[in-house]
């Protein structure tokens, strides 16, 4: 018995998972060569699960800025901003984000995960209330756990349920902060933000939207769901990440609230970790610039998402309710999901395998995310491959095959 003994149930689950195909948690690419391609075990693989929505990881302007920054400013900051100071890039990035969103204040974090940890644990203190969507990302769950506020959970994307739960704590003292996401990372569905904003107004709560998957994806200027839904004025805090549409790493929080900057000396996940290196800051700044300069990327992304969604839908697969760049196929059970995922890898297509309890309602998912950098031909190939493997495994209905027989063979 060692200190690791407590992990034996988890280890058993993990080992049984590995026994069924590739190890989804140890996947190792030989190389990545573009936003949509890499090689795995010496063979080319199409990347269909990387959250690289605008394909900016290989944007020449972003690369140039990063190279220039690393040469002139060095490889890292070797400390936090309160200890080692703010570099001009950090301040420029905050100013640029604030301008892009039309907000007074911007605060940059080292990851989006840390932005949620920091903002949620600090904004809401003892006696305050956090009201979070049931399907919130792990960083939101961890953030609310790190703080001292009371945490309430409402049914996913259900404004009436949110309202009911706020009514239950109506008379209680303390501030109330509703926390939702623009696009949910597992099923790719959007929050009903207009209705949630109405609940917020009626109950006097604050509203935070995590636009991690919607920045650069939704809205006329790419600001996210709040812009698309026309309720930006109701959103008090916007959290986001640079690790998806902006192709780098880092997180942020934006607000108009006067005095917001006090968080810089109160928020521990901001204060006690090294700040972003100059090259990351430089490529992120340029990516934000490219996002504005190339609105056509967003249009291509939309068209690509529609192509994949329609293609998979026509196969009779069960998808999420909204056409967004995250497209998840619900599998009948974990075994089928693992088999399907492994077969796709063998056929040169990489997407994400998502299993309970990390998924809503115990679903087993093949989660894909589309990029503006995908070509229609690549998407067609993905659909055709998914169709062929799906038929073979009995997950995609087929006229000339006995579905039940194949279903049984998947379960075995």
């Amino acid at each position, binding site marked *: 018995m060692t200190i690791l003994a407590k992990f034996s149930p988890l280890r058993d689950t993990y080992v049984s998972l590995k026994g069924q195909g590739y190890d989804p948690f140890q996947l190792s690419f030989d190389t990545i060569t573009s936003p949509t391609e890499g090689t795995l075990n010496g063979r080319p693989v199409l990347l269909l699960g990387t959250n690289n929505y605008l394909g900016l990881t290989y944007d020449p302007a972003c690369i140039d800025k990063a190279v220039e920054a690393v040469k002139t400013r060095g490889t890292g900051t070797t400390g936090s901003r309160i200890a080692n100071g703010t570099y001009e890039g950090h301040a420029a990035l905050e100013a640029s984000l604030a301008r892009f969103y039309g907000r007074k204040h911007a605060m940059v974090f080292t990851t989006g995960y840390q932005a949620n940890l920091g903002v949620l644990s600090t904004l809401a203190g003892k006696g305050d209330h956090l009201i979070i969507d049931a399907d919130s990302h792990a960083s939101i769950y961890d953030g609310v756990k790190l703080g001292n506020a*009371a945490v309430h959970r409402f049914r996913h994307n259900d404004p009436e349920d949110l309202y009911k739960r706020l009514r239950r704590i109506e008379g209680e003292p303390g501030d109330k902060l509703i926390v939702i996401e623009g696009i949910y990372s597992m099923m790719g569905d959007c929050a009903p933000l207009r209705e949630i904003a109405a609940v917020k107004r009626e109950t006097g709560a604050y509203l935070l939207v995590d636009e991690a998957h919607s920045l650069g994806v939704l809205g006329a200027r790419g600001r996210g769901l709040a812009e698309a839904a026309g309720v930006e004025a109701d959103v008090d805090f916007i959290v986001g990440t640079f690790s998806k549409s902006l192709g780098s790493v880092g997180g942020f929080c934006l607000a108009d609230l006067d005095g917001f900057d006090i968080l810089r000396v109160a928020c521990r996940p901001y204060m006690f970790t090294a700040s972003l290196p100059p090259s990351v800051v430089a490529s992120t700044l340029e990516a934000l610039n490219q996002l504005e300069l190339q609105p056509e990327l967003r249009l291509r992304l939309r068209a690509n998402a529609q192509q994949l969604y329609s293609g998979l839908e026509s196969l009779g697969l069960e998808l999420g309710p909204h056409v967004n760049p995250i497209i998840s196929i619900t599998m009948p059970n974990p075994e089928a999901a693992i088999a399907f995922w492994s077969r796709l890898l063998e056929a040169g297509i990489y997407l994400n395998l998502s299993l309970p309890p990390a998924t809503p309602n115990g679903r087993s998912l093949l989660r894909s995310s589309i990029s503006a950098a995908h070509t229609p031909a690549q998407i067609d190939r993905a659909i055709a491959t998914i169709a062929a493997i799906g038929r073979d495994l009995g997950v995609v209905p087929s006229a000339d095959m006995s579905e039940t027989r194949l279903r049984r063979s998947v379960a075995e």
Partner: protein
Amino acid sequence: MAQSAVIRRNIVESLEATVKRPLEIAGNTKIAADLGLDSLAIMDFIMELEDRLDLSIPLNRIAEVETIDDLVRTIEELKEDAK
């Protein structure tokens, strides 16, 4: 019925609604260890229970709960606070 008996009955009903099978439950039954509920299932069970009792049971108050008796006590405290 005494308040704690009502709470207890609602706990059992909510648990059964969550796991979708009848359960043998005593006061010292451990919710996670004995009933095999993972973290997500516990949160879903609590959500169901909140609706039955029309009471908010904050997640941070669940962290200290291990057994059914612990939960009954926590709910009694929450009801007391709400008065």
